[in-house]
């Protein structure tokens, strides 16, 4: 007698109900997550043009190898890495400093923490538009303010030198509070017995921070850096709204390059290949960080 047949009827009914209730969620995942992922991998290995679908053909690894010849891809790859590592490094430094400042008994600490989280709640599109007009070269707010006090200005969002730093600034402004709050929660989870013992041993505040607290919250720091790195590598909306990847392709991150390649040029094969390169990059970073994390544990 089969295993299924040997189950009492009420258990078979329970299983059926469970399947029916799980069904919509599984179908949703299959349709909107798993199928598109597999399909995009298929497209990445084909010449697939949006406007010439009569010419779709298998191309092997051509879409990937062609990227190596593309100056714009190399530029995008470099811009993505520079953006991600710069933004995350600044967010970590500033966020840690803010967390240290907040990790003490003070009046209105809760109010401060609530106010701190506001940038994270703002839509990146709204924030990007605001910063775009602040940093507009000729008629932006920053240019106006600097000129009114006779300070030299720059072309900000249309400057080859300044466009990327400006985008990094906007990202840091939005996500530093998130990093600060995660690090703060890590600090506050450190046992007071440990810190009191350190005080009794005569350690200064600075020594306590670096020799006791930081090593104990290292897993928290690694996790928050990993989360921010993944988000930064995948970032699209902020760059799209602020600079559209310009001037030229100075701020064109991989996700935006993939979008332009796919939907402006119609080359979905290359666009999918770029997307998968991004996936591989993120996975390599995750693997490295998880290794660090397990060593720390």
């Amino acid at each position, binding site marked *: 007698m089969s295993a299924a047949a040997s189950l009492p009827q009420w258990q078979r009914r329970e299983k059926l*109900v469970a399947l029916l209730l799980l069904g919509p969620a599984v179908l949703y995942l299959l349709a909107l997550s798993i199928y598109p992922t597999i399909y995009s991998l298929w497209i990445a290995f084909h010449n697939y043009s949006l*406007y010439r679908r009569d010419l779709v053909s298998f191309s092997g690894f051509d879409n990937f190898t062609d990227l190596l010849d593309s100056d714009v891809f190399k530029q995008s790859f470099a811009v993505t890495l520079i953006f991600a590592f710069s933004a995350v490094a600044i967010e970590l430094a500033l966020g840690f400093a803010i967390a240290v400042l907040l990790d003490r008994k003070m009046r209105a600490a809760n109010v401060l923490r609530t106010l701190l989280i506001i940038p994270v709640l703002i839509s990146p599109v709204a924030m990007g538009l605001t910063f775009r007009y602040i940093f507009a070269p000729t008629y932006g707010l920053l240019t106006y303010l600097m000129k009114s006090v006779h300070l030299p200005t720059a072309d900000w969002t*249309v400057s080859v030198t300044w466009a990327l730093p400006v985008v990094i600034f906007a990202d840091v402004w939005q996500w530093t509070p998130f990093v600060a709050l995660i690090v703060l929660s890590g600090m506050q989870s450190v046992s007071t017995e440990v810190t009191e013992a350190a005080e009794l041993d005569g350690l200064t505040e600075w020594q306590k921070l670096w020799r006791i607290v930081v090593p104990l919250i290292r897993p928290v720091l690694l996790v928050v850096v990993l989360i921010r790195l993944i988000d930064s590598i995948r970032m699209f909306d902020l760059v799209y709204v602020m600079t*559209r990847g310009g001037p*030229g392709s100075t701020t*064109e991150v991989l996700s935006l390059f993939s979008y332009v390649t796919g939907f402006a*040029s*119609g080359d979905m094969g290359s666009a999918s290949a770029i997307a998968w390169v991004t996936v591989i990059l993120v996975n390599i970073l995750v693997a490295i960080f998880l290794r660090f994390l397990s060593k720390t544990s």
Partner: protein
Amino acid sequence: MVGRKSFGGSGGLFGAPLSRRSALKRMGAGGLGALAASTGLSGVARAADAPTTIVSWASAGQRWEFPEKGVLPLFKKKFPNIDVQIFAEPIGDMLAKTAVAMASKSDRYDVIFDDYNYSPQFIAEGALENLEPYLDKDPEFKKDILADIPENVLDLYRDKPAAQGGKLYGLPPDSNCQMQYYRADVFEKAGLKPAETWEDVIENAKELSKGGVKVTGTTMRRGFWAGAAFITLLRCHGGDWFDKMEPGGWKVQLDTDEGHKAMDVLMRLVPYMEPTALNASDDEANTAMLNGTWTYAPFEWGGSTMNDPQYTKFADVWKVAVVAKGANDKGHHAPHMGGLGLIMPVYSHNKDAAWEWIKFCTSGDKQDPAIGKAWVENAGQPARISLLKKYTSIRPYFAGMMESLPVAMRFLPIPESNALYEIVGTEIAAVVIGQTQPDQALKNMQKQATRLMTKGGYYKS
């Protein structure tokens, strides 16, 4: 039973104790039932509703969204049973999104006010409704529109030219071409005249920047915008995309003498361009011209707000001339033809209502003089010659447009058009910011364009 918790004490909803599992099962069934019921009810509600709702997707602002909204009250009076929802987005965002929508067979939009540059690929995809059967049902309207809109403008929305039996897949309530925009007050003060050749353009731009502030601009954003700018320069110097656009031809002609001349002019002009130009699409260009940041735009797309006092205090002083020609022997005036037309996706479920909207927007004075008036007064830029002539008094630049349209040259009538302009525009944007050398950029665009045409099968014998 072991492991089962009961709710309701001695009596649940139906008298017997309700176990947690039973409660969850009933909640799940209830949720699914509610979902099914709401879908059914809304279906019944839709059947009972009289009006048809169509969605008209347009680029935001002047020439497209505003004139549609301007004629909408008149349309509602004539067609009370058709509700038109106008959905607008900035043109820099919208155009690429229309390609996505058509590729994904979206049925969300019944009418799209789209750039003709996308028509060849949409027609090739089979995404557009052929409008000839609708036109044939109203022979008077058809006769009027064929007579009042220039054939080279209508051909932009045909699968092939009318002379070769092409069919219309869109109707244009809007026409456009690049023009040489200049502020008459600024030019007069500087003792300048509109340029006849591109050397004159560079001299004008140089002179205007002598005060230390650069005021010349055009749309140089990477991709389509910068691509169109360069191709205009190429054509003005006697060059073009291909040797000939027919079987046996299609040889890319970018890295040629004319290409080098065009690149040379561009590189001598760029130092005098206002910084915003380097990353500008139409949205940024129009803003810069309206707020006075730019006072000279030697090859800029038509903007109906330039002469409208509700949008700019410089409405009386913005003038136009035809785009300059190359200073070489082959030089001629060759602005790009622009323009957006109303197309109907085949995926629309409200085609008859959509056709009424398209016909209304393109009727000009045919159905009611108020329509043409509302269209123009709400920042429209008509394709009908009758409207261009009639409203020159309130839009002086219409006269310049009528002069430029006959010499304007269209984007490529092949599905690869957008991709080709992206290739050129990417290289041009890299050159103007110093990332690539001009000669290398010409080689790169020649190579990439040739590869694209090869993939498209244009060189097969």
